[in-house]
């Protein structure tokens, strides 16, 4: 699918790999992207290719610096494609946002204390959802908003996505 391709191209730029790879056309019936590597068979799947690109760019720290962190990164990459990308209704997105909001209450990044691939991929996946929220809703999911605002300002992450505006002051005191 075009969207996955755009996202991977954006990730390449974030990682400093300017157009070195050729992304093959996706398989006819699904949205799964394919990457033809120089040695061996093609790589299939968004997070698989993303992890591969991180290693090519020699930025392995983005996959987690300890065993625990790597595990958490893997978990969120999976969450991205199984939960966030499968939100079909208002209710689904509410559930995801609520879950994330609880999880992020005491965290700056999704895994550990620095930016990982999980942050980048979840940010990309959530972008259209968060951009569509009203200020009242952004305030309701305050931890998601704080994290999202932080990630979109991390150098190189946002690329061509529109910047989402967050109010720094509380507008809706009655919501809480």
């Amino acid at each position, binding site marked *: 699918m075009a969207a996955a391709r755009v996202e991977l191209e954006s990730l390449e730029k974030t990682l400093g790999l300017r157009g070195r790879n050729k992304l093959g056309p996706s398989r006819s019936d699904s949205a799964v992207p394919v990457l033809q590597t120089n040695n061996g068979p093609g790589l299939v799947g968004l997070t698989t290719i993303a992890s591969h690109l991180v290693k090519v760019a020699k930025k392995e720290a983005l996959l987690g610096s300890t065993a625990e962190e790597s595990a958490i990164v893997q978990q969120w990459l999976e969450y991205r494609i199984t939960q966030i990308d499968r939100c079909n209704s208002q209710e689904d997105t509410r559930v995801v946002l609520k879950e994330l909001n609880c999880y992020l209450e005491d965290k700056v990044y999704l895994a550990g204390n620095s930016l990982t691939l999980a942050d980048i991929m979840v940010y990309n996946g959530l972008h259209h959802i968060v951009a569509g929220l*009203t*200020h009242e809703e952004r305030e309701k999911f305050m931890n998601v908003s704080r994290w999202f605002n932080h990630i979109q300002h991390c150098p190189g992450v946002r690329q061509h996505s529109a910047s*989402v*505006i967050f*109010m720094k002051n*509380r*507008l*809706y*005191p*009655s919501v809480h």
Partner: protein
Amino acid sequence: MTKGESGGVQEDQPQSKKAAKKLQKEAEKAAKKAEKQAKLASENQAGDEEDFAKDRYGILPMIQSQEKLDRVLVHVKNLTEEKADQVVWLRSRVHTSRAKGKQCFLVLRQQQFNVQGLVAVGDHVSKQMVKFAANISKESIVDVEGIVRKVDQKIESCSQRDVELHIEKIYVISAAEPRLPLQLEDAMRPEAGDEEGRATVNQDTRLDNRIIDLRTMTSQSIFRLQAGVCQLFRETLIKKEFVEIQTPKIISAASEGGANVFTVSYFKTSAYLAQSPQLYKQMCICADFDKVFCIGPVFRAEDSNTHRHLTEFVGLDIEMAFNYHYHEVMTEIAGTLVQIFKGLRDRHQTEIQTVCKQYPCEPFKFLEPTLRLEFPEAVAMLKEAGVEMGDEEDLSTPNEKLLGRLVKEKYDTDFYILDKYPLAVRPFYTMPDPHDPKYSNSYDMFMRGEEILSGAQRIHDPQLLTDRALQLGIDIEKIKSYIDSFRFGAPPHAGGGIGLERVTMLYLGLHNIRQTSMFPRDPKRLTP
């Protein structure tokens, strides 16, 4: 004898076991019934004999003004500690009743006040009387005589917390049907109470049974406060030497655009219901009344089913001649509204508190002098918050609300004026801004982020008025009489119209305008 005979005949005939059983059963049943009746009769008799208090309760014959009774009825709200140990008469509704052995607790309600009453077996009260009191249906109207007694423990569920009434006589004046279309308790429950799984009453059921819904303490308070708005509006303007006028509601031509008017048949031709007293209040200015106001019904035939639109509502309209700048008028109107807010705060605190119990909201905040923003400033604030809109675009409802929150956050006020609207979004009679023809000398006022007043300097020059109408493609013939009224010398003037229901709704922070209209009219409701 006949019975015996018939029995004999039946015995002679061969009969099935089944039929015999049936007969036997029937006989048993009859016997039981007779026994029961006898018992009941004897009980009743016994009751009648024993009941020493039979004159102290009962159902009174219909009051048809047969006699002038010299009896003082005390209002429930006046039942306080000062009245302790006095014998009083009062007329009230039975809000709830709960019998418990030899006692019956009644909550007696009069408007938004209630008090606990107690009927307990004693020297003056018999068992039968307690039973009678317990059986009075909810919402019946009763006359009660009793002694006011102080209580040790405050009664939290009643408005009169310090006293209760020991009832000695109770008569039903008007009995209510035992089945009510809705329970007052349910209608008064805060919406947050959902968590308890208790019932609440939805808007339509309330409106279908409006007279019962209006009895709730919340509704009683809302409409008392609304009356207060009208009174304060009059008071303030009369002090400022405004003249109250009455204008016709049946008019020959639509005043602002023909789309949203109701047409009525008028003998051999048709007429319209006035969308606002616009034309007439301007004509009064041309007739040298200088400052006028008008309170009356206003009709809008817009098919919009929202939380804040009605097809008939009460308009509070102001029009005033000014000397050099329309801000003279704007300040006068904003000042009037501030006086209303202050008056409500000072005079109607009980009502505000009562409504707050069911519909919690933050107290209404305002500044003195009133905050005035210009339209471009507002657009800039919205753009800063990520809203995409054009400079000459009208505010959408969500943007209006967001702007309200932004203003509240920045200036801490729920009331502000938005001045200098783009000319393109205002009616043809609005005076263009002298410095920038894109804008106009018009303003809206907002409460809690929702528009309550729309106003402007009007064009008082017939030539300019004609030009503007032509520019907007309005048929000059249709508004000829309107334009003509400015031909014989017209002072510069400005004004505005406020919706009474909206002011009440937004002051109290309610979420539906139907709550502040006694018998609301909308595209889907014509009754009750």
